[in-house]
């Protein structure tokens, strides 16, 4: 049975709770869990001060969190196993540095989701902030593996300097998607604002909606790459439909960014005929 944590006292300043991870809680007794340190601003307080902790029956390495956790940061930091399920909005750095396991959020999430993650799955059923799967400031590479799925919109610099892995954004994303990307795949089901793929070195950005293209990208060809079919099959269990059949349409391939100069690719979906494959029928909503 999972360990259930309910937010009892709402933090007034950011609460840094990197202990809210299966690795830190699974092997500890209830009393030990309540005594773990969290940082409320600069104050060190026991976890029990903010959360009611409950375990029913046999312990597993699953965590369920309830409450308004907008100010709670670093949930699931560097976790390697088990799962974290959150009912409510969460704060920054969700699943940063994580190497395995899965995180599910039924609500909104803040910036830096899955920053520099090495593996595992993060699924946010709501809007998210910026710098998803990104590299921290001054760090050479962002996420190196794993999958991040966002049902709603996303903020700035999604996948900044990411190296490998997959990010899927269901709603519209803000500017600088895939900034300085070094590899991996970003799928944009709701399009993006300006400057997608700026300074990208390698990697792939797939957009189902039309995208403003930077002048330093050049149109290359129209394709239906085989890997999109494989990616579509991988994303299918999550309820994401990625169009890839030739009769539905094709992808316009842009390569760049020539300012680096890079070998990245931007794939923008073009339905075969207007009305045949509108947003509702392809890729709409995760």
């Amino acid at each position, binding site marked *: 049975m999972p360990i259930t944590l309910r937010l009892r006292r709402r933090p*007034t*300043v*950011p609460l*840094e709770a*990197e*202990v809210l*991870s299966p*690795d*830190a809680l699974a092997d500890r007794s209830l009393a030990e869990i309540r005594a*773990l*340190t969290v*940082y409320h*601003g*600069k*104050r*060190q307080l026991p976890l029990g001060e903010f959360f009611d902790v409950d375990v029913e029956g046999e312990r597993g390495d699953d965590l369920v969190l309830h409450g308004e956790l907008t*100010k709670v940061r*670093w949930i699931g*930091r*560097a*976790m390697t196993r088990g799962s974290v399920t959150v009912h409510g909005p969460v704060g*920054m750095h969700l699943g940063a540095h994580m190497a395995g396991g899965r995180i599910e959020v039924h609500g909104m999430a803040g*910036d*830096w989701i899955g920053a520099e993650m090495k593996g595992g799955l993060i699924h946010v059923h709501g809007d998210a902030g*910026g*710098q998803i799967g990104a590299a*921290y*400031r*001054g760090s*050479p590479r962002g996420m190196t593996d794993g999958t991040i799925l966002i049902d709603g919109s996303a903020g700035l610099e999604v996948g900044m300097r990411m190296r490998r892995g997959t990010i899927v954004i269901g709603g519209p994303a803000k*500017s*600088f998607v895939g*900034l*300085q990307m070094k590899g991996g795949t970003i799928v944009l089901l709701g399009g993006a604002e*300006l*400057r997608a793929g*700026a*300074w990208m070195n390698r990697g792939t950005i797939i957009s189902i909606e039309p995208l403003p293209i*930077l*002048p*330093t990208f*050049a149109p290359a060809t129209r394709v239906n790459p085989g890997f999109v079919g494989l990616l579509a099959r991988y994303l299918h269990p999550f309820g994401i439909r990625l169009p890839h059949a030739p009769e539905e349409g094709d992808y316009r391939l842009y390569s760049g*960014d*020539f*300012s*680096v*100069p890079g070998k990245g690719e931007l794939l923008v979906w073009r339905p075969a005929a207007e009305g045949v494959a509108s947003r509702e029928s392809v890729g709409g909503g995760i």
Partner: protein
Amino acid sequence: MGGKVTCTLGEVKQKADFIVYWGGNPAECHPRHFTKYTIMRKSKFLPNGRKDRTMVLVDIRETKSAKAADVFLQVRPGKDFELLTILRALIKDQPVDNDRIPETGLTRDVLDDLIRRMKAAKFGCMFFGMGLSMTCGKHMNSAALLTLVAELNAFTKFVAMPMRGHGNVTGADVIMRWQTGYPFGITFNRGYPRYNPGEFSTVDVLVRGDCDAAFIIGADPGGTMPQPAIDHLKRIPTIVLDPHITFTSRLARVHITTAPQGIAAPGTAYRMDELPLPLKPALKSPYPTDEDVVRRINAALDAKPFWLPEDGRPRMLTAQV
């Protein structure tokens, strides 16, 4: 990732034969800049002064500085990042579609001429202002310019320098940098400095309402910050140290009037090229200096018990997991 290639204004004065002002209006905002450090200056290496130097102005409209410029490039508002990225591609002879260049407000011929001039320069210097760093794209615009300058060093000597504004803003950056390793956006809540602009930078902290007190020295966020940030400053105890009554003082819980730096209080100010200059007071003030006030607050804090628990030494974020 970039980084800043820079030098002092003395070197610009002596050697820079190619000067670019990007998103700034030095003729009106830094009126002594031309005559003291850049285009009007004669030097050992540039004996003919203005004739030996080329000046380029990049801005969204023709300001007074355009009259002083040899080349004025009118970039379309919000297209600085695109223009800088195109320039980065062009200096490396990478292909850029000629039809895509006009969306920046300029033409291929103009950019080719600019690149020819930049590469032919012996010592180039780019000054950039708030017209670049505070418009669409923000920090990435500055990053684009700094990267362009770094890459131009493959062809010739090139440096970049921000045109800093009022007072001692450079000083704040420099001091934070040698004390903590980071210029701004730092938190000490775990007992050691951590850096993350966007998370810990003042305006973001205030807009999200992440702090429960504010201590403001020599700044007026009440006059410049967005409304949610000002509303939060009104909600929390805000303490202001300033020689004048500012917008921020009006919404603050406490205002402490201090002696004005350089006029009635001694200290060190940093020029925009990060050169420290001593300030000698000319007048006496009945008010204490900023330093006095902060020292007295620190002494009062020392009398209180330490804020970490008995055994609680600062713990790294990585310590527990």
